[in-house]
């Protein structure tokens, strides 16, 4: 019977004296302590990671990959419907109900390229401007990217 197939349904007999565990611990546990500088080095690294700027960048990177993927899916969907052949009209300032249109690339219209650009800025946390807070929640983040992306597609589709 191989080891992998042999099962022990009855309880294992693990009755050992206390001295057994004590001697094993003496044999296999070092008798020197961890120097405080090692503790400090590890905690310094942790505190460095948890500083506000660094941490928000990591969180953004963690969540924005999904947001970017969603925005990309919207773009692919739009292009697959061949909706971009017709030159888009100048930006309709009312295309976002309760929100502000943002021409990120300053080309005179708000389109999917603006969503892409905004996504890149959010991802890199390179720079953001208050005016890019499309949904007016006080933050410039991937929610704004989603809003610009979906609005741009809706523009192209001519819904609004």
């Amino acid at each position, binding site marked *: 019977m191989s080891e992998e197939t042999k099962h*022990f349904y009855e309880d*294992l007999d693990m009755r050992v004296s206390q001295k057994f565990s004590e001697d094993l611990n003496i044999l296999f546990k*070092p008798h020197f302590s961890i120097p405080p500088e090692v503790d400090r080095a590890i*905690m310094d690294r942790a505190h460095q990671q948890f500083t506000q700027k660094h941490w928000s960048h*990591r969180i953004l990177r963690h969540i924005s990959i999904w947001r970017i993927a969603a925005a990309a899916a919207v773009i692919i969907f739009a292009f697959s419907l061949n909706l971009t052949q017709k030159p888009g009209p100048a930006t309709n300032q009312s295309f976002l109900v309760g929100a502000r249109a943002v021409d990120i690339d300053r080309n005179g219209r708000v389109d999917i390229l603006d969503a892409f650009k905004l996504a890149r800025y959010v991802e890199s946390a390179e720079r953001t401007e208050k005016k890019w807070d499309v949904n007016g929640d006080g933050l410039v983040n991937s929610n704004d990217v989603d809003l610009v992306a979906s609005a741009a597609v809706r523009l192209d589709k001519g819904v609004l």
Partner: protein
Amino acid sequence: MINGRVSIMDSDQELIELVNKGDADAFEAIYRRYRDWVYHLAWRFTGNRQDALDVLQETFTYLLGKFPGFSLTASMTTFLYPVVKHISLTVRSKNRRFTGDEELLGEIAAPILKESHSSRSELAAVLAILPDEQREVLLMRFVDDMSLQEIAAALSIPVGTVKSRLHHALQKLRDDRRTKDYFLE
């Protein structure tokens, strides 16, 4: 957790939840809770103090890199064991201080073996002739204080295999005249 602050009574899950939110104190609490466990294990794998300290730092750096977004699906020791083992073996092979587990065990037990005819030196001698996988499971159970389920998860083997290895290891110790006195009738 008291008003969102770290307490020594917090479970690992609660601490991880706080670290995921960017709480450095919660990470420190996890570190304080497991650093000795990690260090002892690393020392056992490397047989060298400096290497064990390197492994300790690398293990917690690895853990740090898991945040945010880390979720613990088993116990912390089950998560940490394979990490410490992998890093230790890498450090060990890089430094090429040892060539085999038997030599490593000899190195670890050397100061003890110098004690003439002590029961510990005899225990070390019997352990040295156990197959690696049996000795590993035995030490996980009696030194690292891991449950059979935790050992199985940490080694990615069935609980039945853990029981089998432990059974054979204990049986050899029980049958050996040098170590039979450790066992209760």
